[in-house]
């Protein structure tokens, strides 16, 4: 209970801290939204000044922050200067797309990586193990941008998959099933890239963790006692090996909204990433801050779940804590 209360306080502090720093950072950055209009010789500075004051951009930082917090508490996250409409619905429409993409990628990644990692750990130093490990090393070493561009180039060159967007032009003519299939086809490319980028690391960690445990005395004892391999794996080895994997899982969950920015931009997936990126470059303050707060919420959630799983899986941590209280 005490633990939960502490986490809650920490969460609130984090949200406050993030919001303050966000405002500070946006203040530090030079330029403002209406600067693009300065380049147009036909627009007068008076108009620009007037527009700035309409959106409250000429107010001092503290005042703006105060007003933002005040309205945020009432679930009003401000106005987007570019879109001239409230921030929250704008964010949510795009966030849904990103969540869809990243959840699909995460499911696929973990479904493939964990069994694969366990399997090659059991194979242990065989030819398969070495081959997959080698390929894995290569894959992990590639920076995300290289993987993304390489896959994109292949897909474009051989016209294997449609690129960009979430659906084709005449959506309305299609049934729900056809529509879902259409989205799935368009999702294949970014999901593939995301999986390629993430899977290697997870396989690596799973394999390392399982290998470490496989040599432990209690496992050998279990084998000697006649416990079957599968039961041994599931009941004794995996929970112990799970530690770094759970941290990774937590990081994956936390990055559900923010982790795929580059891929979305390259593949043209209409997600939150490109929206926030454009808003950042355009200095559309409240949209950016709203997006950051949303990502923070997800991160908090992801970390909470990860820490809870860590506690659940490794009783030693729990008792460790109990000793100190």
């Amino acid at each position: 209970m005490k633990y939960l209360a502490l986490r809650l306080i920490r969460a609130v502090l984090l949200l406050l801290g993030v919001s303050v720093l966000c405002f500070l950072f946006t203040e530090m950055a030079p330029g403002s939204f209406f600067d693009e209009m300065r380049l147009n010789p036909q627009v007068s500075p008076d108009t620009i000044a007037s527009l700035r004051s309409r959106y409250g951009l000429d107010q001092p930082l503290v005042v703006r922050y105060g007003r933002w917090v005040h309205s945020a508490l009432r679930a009003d996250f401000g106005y987007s200067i570019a879109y001239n409409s409230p921030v929250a619905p704008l964010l949510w429409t795009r966030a849904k797309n990103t969540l869809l993409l990243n959840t699909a990628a995460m499911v696929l990644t973990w479904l493939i990586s964990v069994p694969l990692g366990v399997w090659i750990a059991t194979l242990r130093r065989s030819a398969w193990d070495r081959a997959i490990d080698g390929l894995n090393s290569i894959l992990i070493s590639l920076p995300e941008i290289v993987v993304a561009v390489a896959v994109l180039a292949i897909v474009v060159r051989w016209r294997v998959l449609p690129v960009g967007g979430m659906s084709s032009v005449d959506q309305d003519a299609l049934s729900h099933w056809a529509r879902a299939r259409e989205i799935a086809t368009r999702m294949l490319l970014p999901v593939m890239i995301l999986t390629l980028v993430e899977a290697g690391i997870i396989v690596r960690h799973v394999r390392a963790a399982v290998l470490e445990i496989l040599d432990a005395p209690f496992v050998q004892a279990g084998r000697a006692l006649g416990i079957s391999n599968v039961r041994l794996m599931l009941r004794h080895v995996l929970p112990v090996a799970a530690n770094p994997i759970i941290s990774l899982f937590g990081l994956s969950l936390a990055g559900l909204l923010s982790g795929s920015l580059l891929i979305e931009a390259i593949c043209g997936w209409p997600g939150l990433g490109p929206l926030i990126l454009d808003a950042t470059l355009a200095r559309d303050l409240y949209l950016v801050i709203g997006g950051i707060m949303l990502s923070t919420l997800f991160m908090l959630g992801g970390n909470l779940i990860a820490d809870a799983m860590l506690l659940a899986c490794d009783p030693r941590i729990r008792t460790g804590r109990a000793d100190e209280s």
Partner: protein
Amino acid sequence: MNRKASILILALAALHLALLFTGFLAPCDPIAQDRDLPYAPPTRLHFRDTSGWHLRPFVYALQPGPDGYIEDRSQSFLVRLMVRGNKYKLLGLVPLDWHLIGVDQPGKIALLGTDEFGRDEFSRVLYGGQISVAAGILATLVALTAGATFGVVAGYYGWIVDEALMGATELFLCLPWLYFLLGVRAFLPLHLSATRTFFLLTAVIGLIGWARPARLVRGIVLTARTRNYVLAAKGFGGSDSYVMRRHILPEVMSVLVAQAALLVPRYIAAEVTLSFFGLGVNEPTASWGNMLSVLQRYSVLVSYQWLLAPAVALVITSVIYGLLADALLSRLEFQST
């Protein structure tokens, strides 16, 4: 396994030597433009002409053709070893002008073709590697050192310290770093010398990058500190720092080594983003980061594939580091059991 490790170490040594001796290995000045020869494909080495086979390869001059360039067979230039060319400073100290390979004037040898300004891509990849690999390694060291320190402290002491530090990592992971980069750029003087840019690169990347390793390390430490030998060491009166150093840190090493192999190539690629904000290495200096921006250009992917050389170089470097990290990891596993 030992043989594999030795091959890798040799490869790494060769790579680093190449990067140290770029001046000697690079046939051309990386910033010298040749405005008559933009986007030239890699120079083909010929061993045979109308008079038969030769031991020494030669190259032809390039003339503009309908679809790029065609070789002008009337002008051939022999390729020579140990040629005098543009001046450079070996290891930054010794002024020299000897180059390993070169071609009789006015021929040009572009082993990996030329870029949009007619600059030799091969030389640029070599010189670029110097900056990028060094920056990547340094940034990784900074990020991992900070991350490991904070992670170990957080995991070991637990409770309030843990909450505070993990709160800090969450803060770091959430913040809009693009705005921060804009702000940093605004505060800095307009022109930064090459060394200052370099250190700035590493500082920024390290500053932003410590949070993720810290979380991973903290997770390990949380478990490790409850191990029997740790409790025993504490029972025997070992101080906190002693226990952290002697017993916890080795546990953490495997994660750190794995992370290092991951982060170095990522940080090298991160320079692409930094260049967009003006915080990268500026023209005309070459670095893999600023050369990688060609990856976005469709015409490059279709017509000028030799400009993908820095990406290939980055991949090769990352793979060598990655495989070496693996070998190191296996040794660590071996040792701990």
